[in-house]
């Protein structure tokens, strides 16, 4: 990896992975993955944080195990193999939550077993953990999990603030405030997610205007297979780590596209 988009972080280092998951490729606001728990459980900041951290634990552990097994798992049955690993961790986490945090367990309900099919976890297993060493994979999982937790907590906090006048159960709004109950119902999740995503895009576009590099570091790939120079990528989205040649051209192509986007919206 000669060029990782001009970032000051060393590619695949622990810090780079954390930064990538939290900011550059935030699974909720940038990649738009895992929308089902994002919209369903963020009725309060605590629920959002709980869901995010639960997912983070599963994500980090499953990334680690899948990375360890990446040379053993046959390509053709990799998805079932990933699911088995993920489901095992979800079962463990579910039992632990039920035993030690019953309140959170009740609040999250059905959405804990549904972590098995959370596309962030499967997505990271497929596009990162199955092709990279253990330590970066572990930190990729933690970074993505932190990004997910951060996003869910933000959405939960805004919804709780507007819909109930509280954040983390603390009364924030003045006494005369009448809670706008729609925000803790389903439509509110869409309003807040859309609003925060727009804010995130605004920040990104302003950053691009100032000349900062706001492109994604490694978003799997640009999905532009025609111009992709990745070696050893036959059917997977994200090539192996020996893809030196294509990396530079790919990231500049992505930046060009991002620039166009910015102009179109500005």
């Amino acid at each position, binding site marked *: 990896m000669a060029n990782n988009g001009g970032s000051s972080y060393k590619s695949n280092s622990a810090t780079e992975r954390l930064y990538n998951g939290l900011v550059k490729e935030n699974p909720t606001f940038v990649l738009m993955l895992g929308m089902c728990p994002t919209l369903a459980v963020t009725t309060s900041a605590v629920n959002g944080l709980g869901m995010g951290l639960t997912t983070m634990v599963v994500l980090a552990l499953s990334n680690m195990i899948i990375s360890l097994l990446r040379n053993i798992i046959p390509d053709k049955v990799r998805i079932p193999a990933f699911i088995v690993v993920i489901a095992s961790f979800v079962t463990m986490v579910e039992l632990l939550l039920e035993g030690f945090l019953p309140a959170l367990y009740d609040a999250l309900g059905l959405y804990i077993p549904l972590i098995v099919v959370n596309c962030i976890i499967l997505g990271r297993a497929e596009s990162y953990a199955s092709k990279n060493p253990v330590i970066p994979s572990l930190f990729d999982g933690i970074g993505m999990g932190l990004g997910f937790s951060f996003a869910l907590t933000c959405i939960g906090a805004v919804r709780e603030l507007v819909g109930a006048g509280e954040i983390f159960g603390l009364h924030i709004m003045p006494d005369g405030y009448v809670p706008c109950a729609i*925000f803790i119902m389903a439509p509110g999740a869409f*309003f807040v997610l859309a609003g925060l995503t727009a804010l995130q895009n605004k920040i990104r576009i302003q950053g691009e205007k100032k000349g900062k590099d706001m492109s994604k570091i490694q978003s799997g790939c640009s999905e532009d297979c025609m111009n992709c120079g990745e070696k050893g990528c036959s059917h997977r989205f994200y090539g192996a780590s020996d893809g030196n040649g294509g990396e530079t051209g790919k990231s500049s192509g992505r930046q060009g596209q991002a620039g166009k986007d910015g102009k179109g919206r500005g």
Partner: protein
Amino acid sequence: MSELKKVSSNPHIRSKVTTSSIMLAVVVALLPAAGFGIYNFGLDALILIAVTVATTVITEYTYEKFMGKDITIGDYSAVVTGLLLGLNLPSTAPWWIGAVGGVFAILVVKMLFGGLGQNFMNPALAGRCFLLISFTSIMTNFDCDAYTGATPLAALKNGESVNVLDMVIGRTSGTIGETSMIAIVIGACFLVLLGVIDLRISGSYILSFIVFLCLFGGHGMDAAYISAHLAGGGLMLGAFFMATDYVTRPITKAGQYVFGILLGCLTGIFRLFGPSAEGVSYAIIIGNLLTPLIEKATLPKAFGTKGGKRA
């Protein structure tokens, strides 16, 4: 060559009807209902209507200014939205309810989808439903100085008797603009005579609602029961002023009949079998959402093509 006259491209004959003239006609047509509401409920109603109209216009202006778009408040569509929203609020609501509803209606429902002509549901109704879900107790509190107790429709739902004459004139509790059937029908006649709206949607809506009541209302063809349902609640206001919104109604003639019948049945279902007494707003909003489908299903057959297939 020099003898050739320059011919500009069509259209060659332009109608004098513009968006603003249509919207202005709607505003004028709503004035009787608004006037009666103010007469009926007093100063509170006037303040609420003023707040909603001011908020919708200011929101549209601010958004367009901020986004560097053309200012379109001159087409009066924001005034119509504000007026309709104001007429759909109970007079007891505090002023900020009108402001919140107006901002939501214009900013979220209309401007974020691209402004007039792009909104997928009626902004005023979406604003009302937003308020109804968010602030249920405020939005269903009809106890004002003039009237206490349930709205006629709620009383009807509980099996109590209602005074139909009062309901037709408008001397009942309810939202500001919905109580007086007479005032609404006067405005509607004005619009029909001007050709701004036709009776395809309104007529099929009301007729199908009557048929639905006869079939499932449990009172058979009882004229008093049916007329109470027609005069009560937002049916008249919805049928003439909101279901006929140019942007969110189907554009095909057949589609407009389908749309009206759908609204009539939905309103009947909500009023008879739903938990609340009123259902016009939700019926129209659901109808708005189905409008693209209705249009697709009722595309007229182009002349010369076979079997209604698209050329």
